[in-house]
C-alpha cells in the first residue's frame, strides 16, 4: 500500500490525467443515461470536481481541495494557474478577431460595469450584516469582485484579517456559483454567441468561474469570455483600493 501511494505521489500529474479522464468518462455516461444530455457532461464533471474539492478540504483542513491529499497532489499542478492560462490562450485559435474587434468596446463597458456593480452588491450585503466602516465595506465589496481583488484591496487599505478572510470567501462563492450556474442560466440571458460571452466575461470577471461555466455551456464561447475576464482582476485591484475606497470614505466617513 505504501509503495503504491509513494509511487502515485511521485507521479502526481500522470495519475491526475488518469483520474480526470475517469471523472469525465463517468460524467459523460451520467449526462447521456441519466439526464438525456440535458446537462452537459462537462458541467457534471466540474460539479464532481467541486465536490471532490469539498471532500479534500474537510479531510485535510487545507485550502487546495483534493490536492491537499498527497496522492492527488498532481491536481494542484494540472489545475494550477499555469496550465489553466496556457490552455485558455490556446482556445484563441478558434476565436474570430473580427468579432472581438467589433465587440471590444462592449467588453470594456462590461468590465467597468461588472466591477462597480459587484462592488456595490458586496457593500450592500456587508451593510446588512452591520459593517459600517469604509475599510471593511470596501474589502468585502472588493471580495465580491474576485477572491484575488478582496485580499489585495484589504491588505492595501489595512483591513483586519477576519474581514479579509470573509472577502476571500465571498470571491470563492462567486467563482463556484458562476461555474455551476452559467450553463443553467445561459438560455435565459441569450448566452449563446461570442458577443454575449464577451459581455458576460467582463461582467462576471472571475476567470476560473467564467471559463469553467462557459466550458460547460459551449466550449466555443470560452475564448471570448476568458478574453474580457482576464482584465477584470487587474482592473479590480486598481480601482477598489483607490477610487472606490475614496468614494466609500466620503460616504461612510
Amino acid at each position, binding site marked *: 500500500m505504501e509503495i503504491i501511494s509513494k509511487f502515485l505521489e511521485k507521479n502526481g500529474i500522470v495519475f491526475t490525467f488518469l483520474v480526470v479522464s475517469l471523472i469525465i468518462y463517468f460524467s459523460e455516461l451520467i449526462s447521456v443515461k441519466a439526464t438525456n444530455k440535458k446537462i452537459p457532461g462537462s458541467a457534471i464533471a*466540474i460539479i464532481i470536481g467541486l465536490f471532490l474539492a469539498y471532500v479534500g478540504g474537510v479531510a485535510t483542513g487545507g485550502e487546495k481541495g483534493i490536492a491537499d491529499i498527497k496522492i492527488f497532489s498532481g491536481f494542484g499542478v494540472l489545475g494550477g494557474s499555469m496550465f489553466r492560462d496556457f490552455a485558455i490562450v490556446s482556445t484563441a485559435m478558434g476565436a474570430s478577431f473580427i468579432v472581438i474587434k467589433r465587440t471590444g468596446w462592449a467588453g470594456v463597458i462590461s468590465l467597468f460595469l461588472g466591477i462597480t456593480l459587484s462592488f456595490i*452588491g458586496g457593500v450592500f*450585503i456587508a451593510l446588512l450584516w452591520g459593517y459600517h466602516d469604509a475599510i471593511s465595506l470596501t474589502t468585502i465589496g472588493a471580495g465580491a469582485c474576485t477572491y484575488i481583488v478582496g485580499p489585495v484591496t484589504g491588505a492595501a487599505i489595512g483591513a483586519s484579517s477576519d474581514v479579509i478572510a470573509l472577502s476571500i*470567501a465571498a470571491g470563492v462563492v462567486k467563482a*463556484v456559483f458562476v461555474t455551476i450556474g452559467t450553463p443553467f442560466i445561459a438560455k435565459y440571458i441569450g448566452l449563446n454567441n461570442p458577443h454575449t460571452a464577451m459581455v458576460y466575461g467582463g*461582467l462576471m470577471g472571475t476567470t*476560473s468561474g467564467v471559463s469553467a461555466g462557459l466550458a460547460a455551456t459551449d466550449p466555443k464561447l470560452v475564448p471570448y469570455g476568458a478574453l474580457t475576464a482576464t482584465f477584470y482582476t487587474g482592473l479590480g485591484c486598481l480601482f477598489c483600493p483607490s477610487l472606490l475606497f475614496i468614494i466609500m470614505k466620503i460616504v461612510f466617513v
Partner: protein
Amino acid sequence: MIIYGVGILAFCYVVGQIFGEFIGKLIGVDANVGGVGFAMILLILINDWLKKKNYLDTSTEKGILFWSQMYIPIVVAMSATQNVKVAVSSGFMAILAGIVPVLICIAVIPFLAKISKSSQID
C-alpha cells in the same frame, strides 16, 4: 512538427503574461493585468500571419489544438482544487456577498448585449 505549435503557444503565453506583469507594475497594481488576454490576441495575430504565409502545417496546428482540447480536463482539475470548504462553511453573509453581485450583473446582461448589438448593425 507538433512541438512547433506548442512552441508558438508558449511564445504567446510568455510574451503576453510578461506584458501583463509590466502593465500591473506600471499602474501600481499587485496583479497581472490582462496577460492572458494579450497572449490570446497575439496568438490570433500570429496564427493569421502564419496562415497567410502558408507556414502553418496540420501537425504544427495540432500542437496548439491539443491544448485547447485539454482545456476542460484542466478546468475539472482546477475545480477540484478550489477552496470549496471555505465557500460552504463561511456563513451566510459570504455566500450572499458572492451570489448577490452575480445576480445583479446577470440582470444587466440582456440590456448590455442589446445596446451593443444594435449599434453593430449601423
